[in-house]
């Protein structure tokens, strides 16, 4: 998107400037990115003990604990990758201020994010350990649950957006907010793809 401007030699008349912009031009986007960084750092911190405490064990997972089943993780990753399509469509519709289309894609994303939450329960089962069993169980459970907390928040956010888009007159500002939902979506799903790869592949190395 080209940068909006309004300048003249004597006055800077800002009344002609746009009232709504998208992406990094938008103030709201900076807040979203701030929380993306904080949450990304937090997920990384949860991963650190998983890597650090590994050296206390000869085997990983420890003897008696099977390796995590890969099927639920693969299904989750596949679903998340697939969800990038509606996320992208949502973003494009929002940037066109196409309220009805945004509304529809928000419903699709709501279905996806609820599916993520359901699949998370299967992923927890697939670990074959408990949070209090040993350091392996602790670190894997906490990684899954911390990311699950982001999914829960996203369920709330997307459902709220759906309610706003169906219950109110859609403003340009709402469209910009919907575009930020898409930006956050890539973080929510992308971060899990990395974490799932570590949790599933490392025990198999």
């Amino acid at each position: 998107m080209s940068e909006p401007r309004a300048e003249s030699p004597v006055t800077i008349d800002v009344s002609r400037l746009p009232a709504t912009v998208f992406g990094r031009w938008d103030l709201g986007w900076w807040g979203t990115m701030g929380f993306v960084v904080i949450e990304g750092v937090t997920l990384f911190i949860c991963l650190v003990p998983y890597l650090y405490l590994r050296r206390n064990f000869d085997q990983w997972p420890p003897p008696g604990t099977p390796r995590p089943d890969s099927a639920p993780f693969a299904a989750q990753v596949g679903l998340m990758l697939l969800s990038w399509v509606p996320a992208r469509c949502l973003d494009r519709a929002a940037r066109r201020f196409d309220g009805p289309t945004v509304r529809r894609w928000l419903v699709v994303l709501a279905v996806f994010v609820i599916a993520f939450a359901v699949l998370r329960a299967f992923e927890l089962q697939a670990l074959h350990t408990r949070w209090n069993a040993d350091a392996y169980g602790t670190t894997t459970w906490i990684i899954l649950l911390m990311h699950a907390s982001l999914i829960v928040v996203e369920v709330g956010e997307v459902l709220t957006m759906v309610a706003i888009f169906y219950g109110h007159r859609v403003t340009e500002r709402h469209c910009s907010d919907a575009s930020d939902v898409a930006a956050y979506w890539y973080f929510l799903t992308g971060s899990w793809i990395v974490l799932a790869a570590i949790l599933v592949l490392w025990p198999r190395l």
Partner: protein
Amino acid sequence: MTDTVATPIEPPARVPTDAELRELERTWGDRPGLRGWLATTDHKRVAARYLVTAFVFFLLAGFASVLMRLQLARPEQTFVGPDLYNQLFTVHGTAMLFLFAAPVMFAMGTYLVPLMIGARCVAYPRLNAYGYYVYLLGGVVLWGALLANTGPDVGWTAYVPLAGPDYSPGHRADVWQVVVTYTEVASLAGAVVLIATIFKLRAPGMTLNRMPLFVWTMLVMAFIVIFAMPWVATGSTIFLGMDRLVATQYFNPAEGGDVLLWQHVFWFFGHPEVYLILLPALGMVSSIVTTFTRRPVFGYPAMVLAAVATGILSFGLWVHHMFAVGLPQLAASFFTAASTMIAVPTGIQIFCWIATIASGRPRLRVPLGFVLGFVFIFVLGGLTGVMVASVPFDLQAHDTYFVVAHFHYTILGGVAFPVFAALHYWFPKLTGRMPNERLGWWTFWLLFIGVNAAFFPMHFLGLEGMPRRVYTYLAATGWGDLNLLATVGAFVMTAGVLVFLVNVAWSLRAGAPAGENPWDADTLEWSTSSPPPPYNFAVLPVVEGRSALWDRSGRAPIVTGLRSDMREQLVTTALDARPSYRHLMPNPSLWPLAAAAGTGLLLFLLIFTPWGIVIGGIATGLAILGWAWPTRRHEAEELRREREAA
């Protein structure tokens, strides 16, 4: 290089009418009464509360230290028993670091940054208010717990296994871990607000390389917060808290856990913490030195790069707190080198200030006096820092009073003195009254003498082997006289703080009216009234140079077209501050308070049960729903803007 550049301040290019001013007042002002007071999102009112709250916590933490000094004044006293002593030193350290040092910087930043960059508000006013309320609740929980004899007693570092479930039954350690998280949530919210404010709300013309140094240091501080504070929040509430609440095994060696993991996680936050409270203080010093030498600070690019370098390097030193745990020699050498290296950017800044003072026309007023005191005390703290960065020395001095002396010199010199300098310097802007100069000098000398009397003897006590965190010692150790001197010093410091409070009370009533710019300073906050109106600037400023007021030519273009009947804020581009779009800011709301109450409930319940996450999470979620739900007024304003733009 130019010498002194102070020039008379030009009057605003366009004088707004009374009707416009009244409309701006109506638009940006708060509703009267308690509801308006609680719902305010005015960054100045929120910051003033932050400041007062942080200062109250400072006084309480100082009182705890006076009690400890009374106990240690003579050997084998029984004034304070070991159990209460453990709580006092833990609460003192926790409050000073988490409830005073970082929050007071946020308070100053939240108040000053929008004014310094020519904005009408912060980027996310509601998030800002939310952060304050969460912080306040954290402080109430800590001091309430101490009053209930449940104050944390595991040291401000809460090392495991001492703080773990086996050695700290009961809820004292739980109080520590949630209080830390209260303050970190507040700080993280504040950091996001500051970063977006600084990058996106600068007045036209204020390119990054024209930003005041204080704003630069707040920006670096906010980035440090974002990368450092999640470590202690996650480490305390998730790792330590869950080990205590639901028997996770992070720190249990029997199940593959590791107690050293805590030290790594804690200090990966803890060392940057020192710099995140120090950097804004250095920014304050730069503002004061500029004003009282009447010339721009020497070496602006070097100062900016030094601040950024300090922020980056601060993440590479954490292991120097762990030299005594037994490290591979290569790691110890690396962290010794890194610890020594961070003295370089700090040294650059100190040399730049000295050059500024030497080449300017210094006016020795109270704020500059505190700055000179800061240089003296902080340099001493820095030098002992270089000493303890050396592994052989550190192994001898570790956990002795030498370290207590070192970090008090660093933090009192590097934070408290600049903060007192700043409070005297910006007092006229905050209150509209000049502080009393004579009382200011009394405060300075009492604090300067008190700090040195209290903490210099501790170097010798440490070298003689007195361990920290002991509630008493035997007479035969011969430590009595130096401890008595330290206690006398603590009382002298207390007297200094009391004189400061008298000064505040007196100046609020009888101080001379300050006017817009009593110090003839160069930054934008001094171009609006004292105290500033709710909308900060009637006419948005345009910046022509690094010293926004001194560099005014009177020929700068003026900003027109921003609505005064709605909370419109001009948003500019991140690097060059070119006008980008008009953002409609949210109106005041009680929802941030409700969301903070939900978060407070979550963390409070986590002291006792993991279900706090569910109960508090639902409460917070509902409040955030109310927060985000579009109000009729806001929606109508948005639609009106859209219609008119079309």
